[in-house]
């Protein structure tokens, strides 16, 4: 496997791991507070809809000419990756609250307890909707990354494999722990995924626009390093600026 294939596998694995941890927290909150039957139905329904989206979009994406695909997918990946990176920088510098699975679990569980089901054996619309939305929305980001990364690399199965390994691992750990997976370094993972998505987006987007990168494929690791350096410098500078502002207002 070459560096690009490893990058593809790693990116889809990390993105999927982060999103699965978030979806797991919501499903756990719904299942524990409202019962598992309707919650698991919501999970299955969401996975079904996601599978249909993959089945519909996957073959279509592969059929698009590679230069058009690089330009469009590169642009989308770059826009999407910059969102992740921006949020990660804001979290690392203290401008945005860190993602806290324990707090999210407590909030979701408290909301779910507000209107408990009258008949525990009947279908619970609330639990179904909560778990469906959690799995669908988090899963959609994974689907987007897997399809775009996979299609542009001509290897959707490899990207899907990375995502599947992450889902299985997170679910196994979650079932063993039976608590929100707060020890997963989610913010660091998001920072890493943001860097990867942005770097791949720059590389493919520019290639799609007709650019020949100096060193061809060897430019990609350099872009990843430069993107990471810029993001870390920005996070560090913003953190210092925020601390200075706090001292000045105190």
């Amino acid at each position, binding site marked *: 496997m070459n560096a690009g294939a490893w990058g593809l596998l790693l990116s889809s694995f990390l993105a999927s791991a982060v999103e699965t941890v978030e979806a797991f927290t919501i499903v756990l909150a719904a299942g524990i507070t409202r019962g598992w039957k309707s919650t698991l139905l919501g999970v299955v329904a969401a996975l079904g809809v996601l599978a249909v989206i993959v089945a519909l979009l996957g073959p279509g994406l592969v059929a698009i000419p590679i230069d058009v695909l690089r330009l469009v997918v590169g642009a989308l990946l770059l826009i999407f990756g910059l969102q992740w990176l*921006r949020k990660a920088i804001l979290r690392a510098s203290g*401008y945005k609250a860190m993602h806290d699975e324990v707090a999210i679990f407590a909030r979701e569980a408290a909301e779910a307890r507000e209107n408990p089901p009258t008949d525990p054996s009947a279908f619970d619309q609330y639990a179904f909707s909560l778990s469906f939305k959690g799995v669908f929305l988090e899963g959609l980001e994974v689907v987007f990354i897997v399809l775009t990364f996979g299609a542009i690399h001509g290897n959707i199965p490899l990207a899907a494999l990375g995502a599947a390994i992450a889902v299985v691992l997170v679910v196994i750990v979650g079932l063993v722990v039976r608590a929100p997976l707060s020890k997963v370094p989610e913010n660091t993972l998001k920072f890493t995924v943001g860097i990867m998505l942005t770097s791949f987006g720059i590389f493919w987007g520019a290639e799609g626009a007709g650019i020949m990168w100096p060193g061809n494929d060897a430019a990609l690791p350099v872009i990843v390093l430069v993107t990471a350096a810029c993001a870390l410098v920005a996070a560090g500078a913003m953190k210092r600026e925020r601390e200075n502002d706090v001292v000045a207002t105190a």
Partner: protein
Amino acid sequence: MSAIKNFLAFLYDFVVGDDWRMSLAVIVGLAFTAMAVRSGLNPWWLLPLFVVAGLGVSLRRVVRRNRES
């Protein structure tokens, strides 16, 4: 009609997210790159420059907003 509107709003939020300026920087950067390539140039540095500028402007706005509040 409202379902389509909701879907479009969701799509916008999903792809563009919190700050449209970054998306604009990407699109303008790609357009300028493509135009330069058609003129026989190979400005590989142009898109990264737009990306850094777009992200920088967006982050700067957050710092300024935070100071004002």
